[in-house]
């Protein structure tokens, strides 16, 4: 009987969203009760924050055309990590030279800074992320055109 009632409640799909929201709230509450979670200090890809840099917080440092130290999980798989620590188009370079905080505009203009970790050691993530974005665009454009 209980299962039948639960099934009956779930078969109305408008109940799914509040149910999932309730589950999220419940798990978050458990998470709060289980605090503190111990932070592990030995992290991958550490970097020092230089607040005076115009590329802050994406400035990984290192002189141009020299290899900066990058602590990766499997350094043998990324021998060129640290050779290029930021990618700037001439326009981005101009903004970095003339404005105080280009780093905060990472996705706000084409050719901004991209953290080299994304390209080098975690390249597969970089491929999947825009794929999700393009699929979302494809769905949105199909739905928009379907109405016409």
């Amino acid at each position, binding site marked *: 009987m209980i299962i039948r009632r639960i099934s009956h409640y779930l078969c109305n799909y408008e109940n799914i*969203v509040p149910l*999932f929201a309730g589950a999220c709230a419940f*798990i978050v509450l458990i998470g709060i009760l289980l605090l503190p979670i111990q*932070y592990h200090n030995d992290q991958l890809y550490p970097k020092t924050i230089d607040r005076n840099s115009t590329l802050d917080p994406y400035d990984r440092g290192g002189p141009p055309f020299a290899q900066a130290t990058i602590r990766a999980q499997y350094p043998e*798989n990324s021998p060129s990590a640290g050779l290029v620590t930021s990618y700037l188009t001439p326009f981005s370079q101009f903004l970095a030279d003339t404005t105080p905080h280009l780093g905060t505009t990472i996705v706000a203009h084409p050719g901004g800074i991209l953290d080299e970790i994304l390209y080098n050691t975690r390249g597969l993530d970089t491929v999947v992320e825009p794929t999700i974005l393009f699929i979302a665009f494809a769905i949105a454009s*199909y739905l928009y055109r379907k109405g016409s």
Partner: protein
Amino acid sequence: MSNLAGIPYYVLEFGDELVYFTPYTITLFLLALTFTIFVLVSRPERQVDIAFGGDAYTTKEITISEMRFRRFMAIACGLASMGAMVTGDIFNFTLFTAMVGITNVGIVAAVKSPHVQNAAFQYGLVALTATVPLFGGAAVYAAATGSLSMIELAKGTLPAVPFVAKAFLVLGVIGEGMAPFYAAKAEMFRAPGAPYVIMCSLSSLLIFLRVIEVVMLG
């Protein structure tokens, strides 16, 4: 690597992200691959509505553009499922799971039926919300252990993964795959086009099977 579901036959290296093929992951991968090939070569079913009390029936028409779009989404869903089955990185797994969620919405949203679209909209809301616990779980994994590699977590040398991180990850997968909410999916299955809607169900089943392995690590 005793916690991994079997010793990897082969490890493919993408920088810090390893893709590994154990007996468990390769089975799930082949299942996703086989069904994706079916979707690629098959034509959609045409639903038939029969009127009770008479011999009248109607066959629903599926336009070429709708079929193409849904096939594209089903293939993308299959590829995302394959990626989620074999990836050896927690964050990469969450990304593939999010991709499965959005392609599932795409498969059903292309149908011209208010009832189906309403169900897809509700499901889309859940999939959207589920990204918060999903990526939050991966973030807690990284903060508490300092690593996202499943192979490193399986070695047992890193600190234990907090219960909350695992709970967030499972909750996120439930939301993206709608695993226990098949009632809602049944509403979406009113959409015509058999091989494509089944892909929603299969992908949720696969990512749910994979997340069981993931939470047993660490």
